[in-house]
């Protein structure tokens, strides 16, 4: 295998796993096996896979309410992930958090977040810890274009620039601020916002996983040298704001065009061009589906959390 086809294969595998997980979540949600609200990232897998491929062990990251892809790409145990979303005792958060609060501190995942934009200062704080301790690690904050209107995003960009934090801010721009086009919500440009604080900024095709991985490598290296920057990845949201959203506010044509921009289809084309066989890709897809089926079966079999134990972690003791 060449280096190029090894890399594209690894990235494609990650994307296929994310897609398999979320396709399955569609069914589980429709069957009421996953309660509450879930926000799927189908169509945005290239950002998660590409950025995560540039991180090292010891790096930390925060994600958003639309964060399944990020935590899966970071290597979260999918069994404990499904258990969490299905409200089981063995969930990664013991069934206390659910989809919007998935975290695995052992992997440096400081949590998804139910509050838009709130993860950015948390990532800055993690970057501060890396800086103070001289660990050489960096922190990454994922945020959506809807978060650009949140004040803490602006404050964090300022602080990152002032303190030269080892921080990478990754905007997944899918064009939608929940139910509204971001063009009706944010009059500025992220590039101009970064420039206003003299931060490096790059925009990349967020549906092209190789382009994201390349841009992320550069930005991560910059952050390790104490130069925070902003990476904007343009992408598409294939599903609604939340699962069950009928999306009457969207032009059906935009949704029909999704296949032409499907990051997985694009990655497969690149893999084939790099010499990966169609049979190997088909097998990778089957393996992703099988691992998800088995994780879901195991999650289903787990017991429910015990209410009395929920009190245990309000405080440390």
């Amino acid at each position, binding site marked *: 295998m060449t280096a190029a086809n090894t890399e594209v294969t690894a990235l494609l595998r990650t994307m296929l796993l994310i897609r398999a997980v979320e396709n399955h979540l569609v069914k589980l949600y429709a069957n009421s096996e996953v309660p509450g609200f879930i926000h799927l990232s189908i169509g945005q897998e290239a950002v998660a896979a590409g950025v995560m491929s540039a991180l090292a062990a010891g790096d*930390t990251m*925060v994600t958003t309410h639309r964060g399944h892809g990020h935590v899966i790409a970071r290597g979260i145990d999918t069994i404990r992930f499904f258990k969490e979303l299905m409200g089981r005792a063995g*969930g*990664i*958060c*013991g*069934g*206390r*958090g659910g989809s919007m*609060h998935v*975290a*695995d*501190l*052992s992997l440096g995942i*400081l*949590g998804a*977040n*139910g*509050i838009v934009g*709130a993860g*950015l*200062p*948390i*990532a*800055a*704080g*993690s*970057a*501060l*810890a*890396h*800086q*103070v*301790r001289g660990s050489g690690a960096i*922190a990454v904050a994922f945020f959506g274009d809807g978060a650009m209107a949140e*004040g*803490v995003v602006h*404050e*964090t960009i*300022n*602080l990152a620039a*002032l*303190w030269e934090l080892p921080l990478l801010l990754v905007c997944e721009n899918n064009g939608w601020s929940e139910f509204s086009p971001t063009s009706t919500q944010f009059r500025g440009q992220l590039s101009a916002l970064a420039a206003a604080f003299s931060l490096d900024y790059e925009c990349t095709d967020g549906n092209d996983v190789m382009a994201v991985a390349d841009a992320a490598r550069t930005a991560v290296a910059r952050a390790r040298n104490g130069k925070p920057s902003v990476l904007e990845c343009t992408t598409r949201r294939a599903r609604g704001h939340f699962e069950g959203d009928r999306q009457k506010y969207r032009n059906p044509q935009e949704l029909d065009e999704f296949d032409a921009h499907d990051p997985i289809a694009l990655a497969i084309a690149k893999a084939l061009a790099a010499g990966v066989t169609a049979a190997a890709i088909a097998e990778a897809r089957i393996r992703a589906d099988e691992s998800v089926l088995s994780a879901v079966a195991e999650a289903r079999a787990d017991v429910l959390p015990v209410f009395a134990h*929920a009190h*245990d*972690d*309000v*405080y*440390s*003791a």
Partner: protein
Amino acid sequence: MSGVLAQTRYVQAVNRALNDAMELDSSVVVFGEDVAAAGGAFKATKGLLERFGAQRVRDTPLSEATIAGVAVGAALSGLRPVVEIMFMDFVTLAMDAIVNQGAKARFMFGGQRGVPMVVRLPHGGGLNAGPQHSQCLEAWFAHIPGLKVVCPATARDAYGLLRSAIADPDPVIVVENKALYAQMGEFDDSPVSVPIGRLRTARAGSDVTVVSYGATVALAVAASESVAEEGIDVEVLDLRSLQPWDKSAVLESVGRTHRVVVAHEAVRAFGVGAEIAATIADEGFDALDAPVMRVGAPFMPVPFARSLESRYLPDADAIAAAIRAVCA
């Protein structure tokens, strides 16, 4: 144990606690608005920058929401941040990070990790600082599962509670009354930590219990001296910690005195005193010989003018009047 060395100003006790904690543990960092070069608006952080350097002692921009959020992320990543919000009133801008993030992280992540952060919040009136620089908002924080709240009344406790707060594995809100900063108090040559959740008996007595905290404790003691001449022997309890509060010690005192006044500077309605009074009604009803009375500020913003603010703030006379009423 240590002997009493001398009198020390309350704010110097805060400063000493920060200094000692930073000396002991290199993961303790201090940041906030003007806390480094200027040494803090009230000089609580004076000298820390010179002693511990610019990595660990930092001035932040005027970005309260981000100060608190950075503290959460730093605490989740191995530091013990101690942040100052210059006036408690400004914490309204930082509520998401404190309430939705820091307070809940241990719980909502299934106990994976705690958030050992401290938020220092100077509260209180008496400085004619007006409606946005004088409030006592501690009840908000005591209402949030996952937060601990302390409010020291003395220099000794300002040191001891802050040391405990910094060492605590969970987020702790440290409320310091601005009017106390310049006050002198007894201080030990080797000051020690004060455990969170245990009250202090500021004055022992047998006829009525006054439950208080912060700057109001001294007013309660003064009120006790004035009613002592009338033959009323008052016990003054200084809660020190509001969340958790020392319920068993309060109920024990009420079991002896059978009469209670709860007094604080914060607005009386929906205040800390309401929780204490309700708990006594629930769990100490049989011991009561009179209804529990509350003393607190009236239901209005803190007014600016000297003549208005002095009427607004609960004083020793108001506490004495309540003591007489429950003993009547």
